[in-house]
Structure formats: structure tokens, C-alpha cells
């Protein structure tokens, strides 16, 4: 039997992956997809069946990046990064990890695109750098925009990993010196229709990449089109970005009790009180960080004592800074069910920063405002002020 006609499990066995490892992997996938352990055999069967052909070819392109999303992916545990790049995908191009270099590396990319046209997955990390006609980032002696256009139109789907890939991230923050943008926006401007799945946060959480690799690729949801139904209007998987950090925060009880940290290093901080008064952006940030957590689930930002800075938000640096200040007028429950976005942000995305600034809620800080007085802030929200006294009961 030709290698490519064999089941995934048999191929994995060839690579020294035991049945037990495989089921452990399926178990962690079930947990990430919010399914019960009872679903593990079903997932295992579906994965084996869906990938009867061969390992899915993938290429990982580096844009204007810090390499943090590759680093983050290397922190994945079940499966670990070796399993991702050797047992599940065939990662034929990935600058930070690949054996080949220079022309040999570029040849691997070209061969993959030619051989697997319409069938490979493109993962994009970093911002698209359009400054100086794309010379803000040069790869292989050319503006990197050329590499994007050689690869993206031929991919089956694109995973935009990390906030820079999604919308330019910090690189696009005011004054956006190198004219950075997200891969989705760039491809739209070039009339490339390849579907883009957005996985924001800075860096991306590897658990989300794994979830998408299985959900999208192995379970065949891309071919059936089912995956598009699972995305919100910003191209983000609802299963990951459907609820706020605040919704699932373990410190939520202290918020309800009006028990707030007012100073780092205080007795209240030691009691894990709510960080809302310290500028926490959990109420307006849509990610499942509190449940999935980070680095093999050992912790996450709020658990470590820092307020959430909303790195999974669109325009997160301009929208959310100063990070340790609270915004005036930001209302919990002010967000819509469907997209989880208030009108200010929707307008900012749709009509640019000026429109965003005109919307009443005042959250949509416009870029020019930041360098003057900055966004409107307050020492303490009225709601907190009334209840702050209860916080200091030590």
C-alpha cells in the first residue's frame, strides 16, 4: 500500500507515536473544543478517517514579527511542537525552525506551493509591512509582499496567528511607522479570496492553533465550509473568542463583592482581589484565557497579578493604553451578543479612526488623542468608588 493511502494512525505509528500518545492528544483537543472526555474516541476516529490521504502540508510565513508566536507555539504541550511539525502537519517552510536556509529554504517554499496548490495551509505570523513599497520587510532580496502574493492565493486557508497578523498589532500602533496591517486586510486589498481565520492575542496561544489545526484541517470543516459558520464577523473562531475574559475570570467573585486591588504589592493583591481598578481590560476583551490559560495551563495574566491589557483586542495598543488606567464610560454589558464589539470599535474597523472617534461611547480613542492628553481616563469608576471601601477589609 502506498504511504499516502494509509490511515493517519498508521502513519503516526511509523513515526513512533503510540496509540496512547495519540489518544492523549485527542483528549486535549476535546478539552479545547469544550467537549467531554466521552468524545475522545469519536475525535480519534474522525481524525483518522479525515486524514486518510497524508499529512497536511503547511507553510509558516514570517512577516513583521518578533518571533513570539513561533516561540509560543514551541510552548505547546499536547501535542508538543515536534508533534505539530512532524506528526500532524508537514511544515515545509518555517524560517525559525527549519533545517534549510537561504536559497534551499526558498526552494522548499516554491515546491510546496506548486505541488500542493489549493491544498496547503498558510500560517502567517507578524504584520504585513507595506511601508516603502514593501521594503520595510525584505525577504530573499525582495519586498516580502511578493512572497505573500506568491503563496496566499494558492493556499487552502490562512491562519493569521497573533495580533500582528490579525490587524497589525503593536507594529501598526500610532504612528504606524512602517505602514503595517493585518494579513486579512492586505489580501482583501489585493482581491485575494483565500479564507483567513484570525487568532489574535500577543502572542497567540498555542492551544488555539492546535484547536484550529484539528477543527479546521483534520475534521474537514474547511472543505465542507462548516468552519466559516463557526467564525464571528471578524473571522475569529467563536469557540475561543466568544466570551470575555471577565465572563470566566476566577476573580469575578471579588468584582461582584466590590473587592478591588488599588495598589500592587498590597494586602488586597495578596488576596487575589479583582484588578478592575488597576486598569484590567478583561471586561472588554474577548478570549478564553481564564479557562485555557497559558504555558501548559500553569497560569495566565490575571492569575500572575497583572491586569489584562487586552492584547486580543483589535488595535489593542492604541485602544487600551495607558494599560494601568481605567477608561471612562466603558460599560460592562455594553457589547453586542453577536460580535462582542461595541459600535465604536466596529466603526473604527469599518470606517477608520475618524469615524471611530465620532461614535458616542468614547472608547474609540482616536490616534491623535493619544499623543495629546491621551484617552479619557478616570481614577476610579463610579461603580467602584461606591464599593471600594469593602475592598480594604484586611
Amino acid at each position: 500500500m502506498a504511504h499516502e493511502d494509509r490511515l493517519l494512525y498508521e502513519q503516526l505509528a511509523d513515526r513512533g507515536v503510540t496509540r496512547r500518545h495519540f489518544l492523549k492528544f485527542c483528549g486535549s483537543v476535546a478539552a479545547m473544543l469544550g467537549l467531554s472526555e466521552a468524545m475522545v474516541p469519536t475525535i480519534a476516529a474522525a481524525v483518522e478517517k479525515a486524514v486518510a490521504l497524508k499529512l497536511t502540508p503547511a507553510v509558516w510565513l514570517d512577516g513583521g514579527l518578533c518571533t513570539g508566536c513561533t516561540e509560543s507555539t514551541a510552548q505547546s504541550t499536547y501535542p508538543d511542537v515536534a508533534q505539530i511539525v512532524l506528526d500532524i502537519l508537514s511544515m515545509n517552510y518555517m524560517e525559525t525552525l527549519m533545517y534549510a536556509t537561504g536559497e534551499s529554504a526558498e526552494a522548499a517554499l516554491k515546491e510546496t506551493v506548486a505541488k500542493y496548490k489549493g491544498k496547503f495551509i498558510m500560517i502567517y505570523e507578524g504584520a504585513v509591512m507595506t511601508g516603502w513599497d514593501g521594503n520595510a520587510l525584505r525577504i530573499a532580496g525582495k519586498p516580502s509582499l511578493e512572497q505573500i502574493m506568491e503563496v496566499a492565493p494558492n493556499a487552502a486557508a490562512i491562519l493569521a496567528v497573533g495580533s500582528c497578523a490579525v490587524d497589525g498589532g503593536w507594529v501598526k500602533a500610532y504612528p504606524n511607522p512602517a505602514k503595517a496591517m493585518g494579513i486579512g486586510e492586505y489580501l482583501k486589498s489585493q482581491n485575494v479570496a483565500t479564507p483567513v481565520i484570525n487568532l489574535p492575542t500577543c502572542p497567540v496561544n498555542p492551544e488555539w492553533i492546535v484547536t484550529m489545526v484539528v477543527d479546521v484541517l483534520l475534521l474537514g470543516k474547511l472543505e465542507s465550509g462548516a468552519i466559516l459558520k463557526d467564525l464571528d464577523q471578524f473571522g475569529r473562531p467563536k469557540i475561543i473568542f466568544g466570551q470575555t475574559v471577565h465572563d470566566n475570570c476566577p476573580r469575578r467573585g471579588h468584582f461582584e463583592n466590590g473587592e478591588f486591588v488599588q495598589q500592587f504589592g498590597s494586602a488586597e493583591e495578596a488576596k487575589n482581589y479583582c484588578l478592575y481598578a488597576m486598569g484590567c481590560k478583561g471586561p472588554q476583551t474577548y478570549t478564553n484565557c481564564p479557562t485555557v490559560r497559558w504555558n501548559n495551563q500553569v497560569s495566565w495574566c490575571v492569575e500572575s497579578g497583572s491586569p489584562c491589557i487586552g492584547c486580543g483586542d483589535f488595535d489593542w495598543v492604541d485602544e487600551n493604553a495607558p494599560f494601568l488606567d481605567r477608561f471612562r464610560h466603558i460599560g460592562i454589558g455594553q457589547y453586542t451578543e453577536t460580535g462582542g464589539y461595541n459600535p465604536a470599535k466596529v466603526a473604527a474597523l469599518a470606517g477608520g479612526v475618524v469615524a471611530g472617534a465620532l461614535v458616542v461611547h468614547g472608547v474609540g480613542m482616536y490616534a491623535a488623542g493619544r499623543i495629546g492628553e491621551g484617552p479619557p481616563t478616570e481614577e476610579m469608576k463610579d461603580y467602584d468608588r461606591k464599593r471600594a471601601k469593602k475592598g480594604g477589609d484586611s
Partner: protein
Amino acid sequence: MATNIVIDPVTRIEGHLRVECEVENGVIKDAWVSGTLFRGMEMVLKGRAPSDAFYVAQRICGVCPISHGHAATMAAEQALEVTIPNGARIVRNIIEAAQYLHSHILWFYTLAALDYIDPGKALEANIANTYALAQQAGTTTSDFKAVQDKLKGLVAGGQLSIFTNGWFNHPAYSQTMPPELALIGVAHYLEALELQAEAARVIAIMGGKFPHFMTSLPGGTAWVPTEEKLDDILFRLIRVRDFVYNTMIPDTLAIAPFYTEALKYGGGHGNFLAWGVFNRESLQMKDRYLPEGAVFAGSLKAEEADPAKIKEYVKRSWFDAGDGGLNPAQGMTNPEFTKYDINGQYSWAKAPRYDGKPMEAGPLSRMLVAYLKGVEPVKKIVDVALAKLGATGKPEVLVSLLGRIAARNLETAVVADWALEWVTELTNALKGGDVKLFEPSTASSGDGAGMWEAPRGALGHWMNVSSGRIANYQICTPSTWNIGGRDDAGVTGVIEQALIGAPCIDTEKPMEAARIVRSFDP
């Protein structure tokens, strides 16, 4: 006849880099190193709150965000005149140490090892002999058969994934290295992926996540240590230390004898700079565990390092001429792309000089300075390594490709021990009662600098604060010291000079050049 060769992209590094070399008769005669990405962090930070620099500036590098975070926060603390409590100092030392362990393990195995170990050779290894060799080398064993089967499966499947188009059977690989050592190397390459992640989990426990952490805010730390968490951290760090001593160091010593010719090239200008890292209670730059210092070629003396002696040049980079010749405390960033021209402008990196000289930054600089200043654990471990290399009392042999690699791996061992010491120090402080962790600041104007060391070398952040906002921000990264190109006088940069004189047996596949570039962990 001379030919020009190009490596673009240089893979297995952080970020984007292009290297061009002129090769004649199998030797590199000249070299041009080009940083090919400009993002503009310094411009983005202007106008923001000083505390935001901690959160944003660390995102300049996803491999060493801890060091950038610490440099940014120290710059803010100096500008706003706040002194952090002792508890916060120890917490920061542990987080920084965990990043060093993570970064050095990741560099040696994941990024560099494939330049010295031909993974294809591992297929020829005899399993029983592999175990015997591991025992002889004093390194740990793995399930060598499973690893070899995994490799065989990759080859049989015809999908080589990240090994696609690799330089298998390259003549620059040691022709005498037994295939069993290659198999040990591949096995530990896979094992190291778990160990680098374990070190990063220590950062995540104390800083929320890695990469990009949350807690070392100006004034101290937002993390609250508990005995339970310190126990968790301690045992993870012990596991990492065991790997460093029982696997990484023996592996280094087992592979090095096959590449002793790399002691003869790759050294470069021979000037070294370190700002020092890991604070003692005084918090003074002159009083660090790994000390500051500047060492100039031909001298075995560490002079005091003075940030005022830095000037950055831009004649050969894509910046406005007005940005040139300035100290970062008054530095400016005005990008202006022209075209890629090795005879003109060819890089997004400025060319920093110290007292007019190109200086190497990195573990080799730190180890040399510490050795020359007599730092005990460094002196001890470097002397052992020098004896193994047959160069007792001659630290100057470290100024080479192999020396640079050895310095990084030896530093890993020193830091692994210190990390355990600091956890004990913090645990004792906790048992003794109150550990103060944060000191708020009320100042709203001032100038500050955070001089520090990332795993890959000397790092500086400069911040001017006016009315509570950042008026100017400048960063000089270790990679700028190393990848920076020619200065206004035409003197080559650090990696450029390290390449010159190195062999290049296959101009289609310039393995030796790639090794030298990667040895800087740019």
C-alpha cells in the same frame, strides 16, 4: 576568482536577516550583514505612559521579551526616581534567569545543533553502540530506537516537514563523527523542546505567560510569591538544571572535539561589551552577578563600561543622516529607505560603536568580562573547559566560533545554579515575614536608562519622560551591536568581521557562514 554568495533568509534565528559574502578560493574575503525588517518600536512608544513601555517594548523580541521588559521598566524607574524593594529584585532575577535557561537551551538544540549534527547520519547508528557512547560521554540516554524509528518514518513517508531541503551530507559536517553521536544529538534535540518549555513555565507562573510577561512593572512586581508557588518553581528549575548539567554540557563536550578547527576562525574584531545582569541588593550596575565591562582586542583587561561612550552611525543604513553620530540618550529614529546596495546603504540596523569601536555583545562578552574580573563560578567552569580544549590559562582561544558556543553553554550552567540560589533567597525572605514587592512613584518627569543583558547580549533602553508622557525613547539591542553593518568610516560590523577569513567549501551551501551568524543568536 571571487564570487558573491547570499544567504537570505538566514533561518533558525529570531527575525529577518540577510548575509552576503565575497568568497575566493574557499575563503570568505568580505561580508555584508543586512537587517531586513523595520517596525519602529521607538516611534510607537513616544507619547505613551512610562509604565506602558514595559508592556509594549518587550514585544520587540519574542525570544527575549523578559530582558526588554526589564530594561524598559528600569529606564522608567530611573526616570521617575523609584527604587524597587528587595523582594521584587529577587523575583526579577529568577524570571530573567528562567529566560536565560529557556533561551540558551532553545538556541543550542533547536536553532544551532543541526549545523553540527547531520540528522541523516542518525539513521546509520547502531542502537546498542549509541547507549554505550552516551554512557562513555556521560550524557543522558533516551529511547534511541524510538527516535531512530521516527526519523525512518519521516524518510519513508516522503514528507520531510521542517527537514525539507536540508543540507544533509554537507562536507562541512565532521566526517569522523560517529553516527551514534548524531542519533544522541537528534534525541536530545527533541528532548530539549520539552526542557525549554519547562523553563518558560517558570516565567509563566511568575509572569502570567511566556513569551511576553506581565508582572515586572515599574516599581517592583505585581506577582505575589507564596511558598506553594516557590516550591513549584524550585522543582521545575531543578529539572532544568539537571538537564543542563547531565545532558547539555556533556553533549557540548562530546561534539566540540569534532569541530576544533572552529577555534581558528569566527572570532572577529575581538572587542567585547557587557552592561551586566542579575542585580544584587545595591541595584547598582557595577555590582551585578554577571558584571559590566569592556574588553578591547589584544588586551586581557576588563575596563569599566560607560553608556556615554556609545554612538550610533547610519551612513550605511536606511535612516536620515541626522540620526547619525548620536548617543542613544539623545538618539533619533527617522527611517528612510533608499535601495539595497552593499556599496551604499544596505541595512535597517544602525551601526553602534563604543569609543569608536565595534563591540561584540553576548554570552562570550559576559563570560570573558566575568572571567577577567575573577567571578568565582565563571572562572571555575571556564577553566575546566579550557583544560578540555588543551588551552589552560588561555581564555583568548574563546575568541572564535567554537569559543562563542562554549561560552553560551557554560553560562547556562552558571545561571542554572544561581536561579536555585535565588529561589532559596526568596523563600527565606518569605519565611522571615513581610516581603515588600512594590514601591509606587509620584514623579512625572525625568530621564532614565535601563542597561541590562538579554541572553544574546548587551541591551539598553533610554527613556525621557515629560509631564507623565514618554518624550523620547531609544533602544540599542544586542543584535544591533552584532548585526550592525559598516560605520561612517567604513569599518565592518561585528558579524561581518567574524565572517571574514572563515572557510566556505561549498558556495551553493555556505554552511560555515551560517554557523558563524547563528553563533551570535541574532
